[in-house]
């Protein structure tokens, strides 16, 4: 592939002007495998998400839980299915096509989840996996894992957590385990992923991102991010059929800079524009069905500077198509990221093999130290 033009651009990480090739978009999507992937992912550009706290109750209490930070935990529950049905209809009317049912524990209100599914067929549920969600609710189910069972007992006060999650969701095509790397559970990930792979379960990765004012010891350091990066790459190479991730995911989520610094968060909390995109359509509803634009993002009480959350990245990195269409490696890395996002979040979507097998820096930034 030949570069179409040669331009000079100013990179944000370097005040000096650097010479940089610019590729035509038509050249970037010319290779058949790339075009095929582009056509595959762009079919889902219609997805417009919002998120919903379903209940103010949970059957466990975890150190660093987003739900029980801030004031939303004190919101009253709206338990009337008719009110939820009406909300879903009005959401559809304003263009929402995808729902994320989260906090505190949606599996405790299956009737409300069912109403959401009946009205909005695409979505995901974030759950601790201890109570099985009925099969009729055909959303992706994200099951949180925070280390091995010993660690889970220590920070989540739940015994045999992984075993119980696997018993509930083994062979369930809806289920994706989400392993959250904290500063202290990095070495446990291989053991957990091995168990999941042995049970034919799919797993993706998250990075603990501290809530505002968090004073616990789970937050990452540059060194723990580096260790996480190494373990993620090993697991991705070792379990390509079970680990839903890419090298660009690893880079984007373990970089010393957070997602907002790297990509510019497009959720309303950091984005004042109401004209287009997430700034226009995204809402985060509390259990009483109210919402507040100033707090609206997928993890509302996260410290934005520390945010490397998998759900945030799924929207923030994906939205930055234009800036990734600069050269073949950067664009194909972005395609790998979007392919991963869709496999994690959309029922029936099958992840392809990653196009890029090495870390590529985000546009305008360097790779973090290896």
């Amino acid at each position, binding site marked *: 592939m030949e570069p*179409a*033009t040669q331009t000079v651009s100013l990179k944000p990480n370097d005040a000096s002007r650097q010479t940089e090739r610019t590729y*035509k*978009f*038509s050249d970037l999507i010319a290779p058949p495998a790339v075009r095929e992937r582009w056509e595959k992912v*762009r079919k889902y*550009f*219609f997805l*417009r998400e919002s998120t919903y706290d379903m209940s103010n109750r949970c059957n466990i209490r975890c150190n660093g839980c987003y739900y029980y930070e801030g004031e939303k935990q004190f919101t009253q529950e709206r338990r009337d299915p008719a009110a939820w049905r009406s909300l879903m209809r009005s959401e559809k009317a304003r*263009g929402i096509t995808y729902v994320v049912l989260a906090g505190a524990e949606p599996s405790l209100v299956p009737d409300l989840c069912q109403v959401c599914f009946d009205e909005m067929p695409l979505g995901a549920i974030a759950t601790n996996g201890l109570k099985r969600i009925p099969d009729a609710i055909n959303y992706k189910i994200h099951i949180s894992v925070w280390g091995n069972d010993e660690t889970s007992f220590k920070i989540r006060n739940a015994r045999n957590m992984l075993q119980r999650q696997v018993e509930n969701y083994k062979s369930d095509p809806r289920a994706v385990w989400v392993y959250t790397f904290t500063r202290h559970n990095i070495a446990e990930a291989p053991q957990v992923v091995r168990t999941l792979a042995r049970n034919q379960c799919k797993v993706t990765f998250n990075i603990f991102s501290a809530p505002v004012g968090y004073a616990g010891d789970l937050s990452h350091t540059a060194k723990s991010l580096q260790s996480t990066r190494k373990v993620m790459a090993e697991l991705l190479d070792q379990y390509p059929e079970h680990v839903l991730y890419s090298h660009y995911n690893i880079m984007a989520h373990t970089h010393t800079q957070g997602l907002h610094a790297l990509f*510019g968060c*497009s959720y309303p909390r950091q984005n004042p*524009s109401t*004209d*287009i*995109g*997430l*700034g*226009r*359509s995204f809402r985060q509803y509390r259990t009483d069905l109210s919402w507040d634009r100033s707090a609206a993002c997928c993890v509302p009480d996260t410290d934005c500077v520390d945010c490397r959350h998998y759900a945030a990245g799924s929207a923030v990195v*994906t*939205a*930055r*198509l*234009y*800036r990734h*269409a600069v050269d073949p490696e950067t664009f194909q890395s972005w395609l790998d990221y979007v392919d991963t996002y869709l496999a994690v979040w959309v029922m029936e979507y099958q992840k392809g093999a990653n196009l890029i097998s090495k870390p590529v820096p985000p546009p305008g930034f360097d790779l973090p130290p290896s």
Partner: protein
Amino acid sequence: MPREVDSIIVRIAEIMISELKLEDVTPEGFNPDMDLVDEVGIDSMDLATVALVLRDEYSVRIDEDDYPKLTNIRLIAEYLHGKMAA
């Protein structure tokens, strides 16, 4: 300038119809003042796709920060025309 902008408007309409697979509309019949978000139903990913095709055709970068200003085809055409003239 108006004639140049008019020809860019028609080309943008052609690209939008083709890239976004819009139905029941022709380039000539595409109202250039129609709000792309509210009335056509396109969103940021659609606009980014169109912006990349326009970048190929006119060698003009449409800055991501400028998307919110580009709410109809006429504004996009004037934006491109302004950048080409600069």
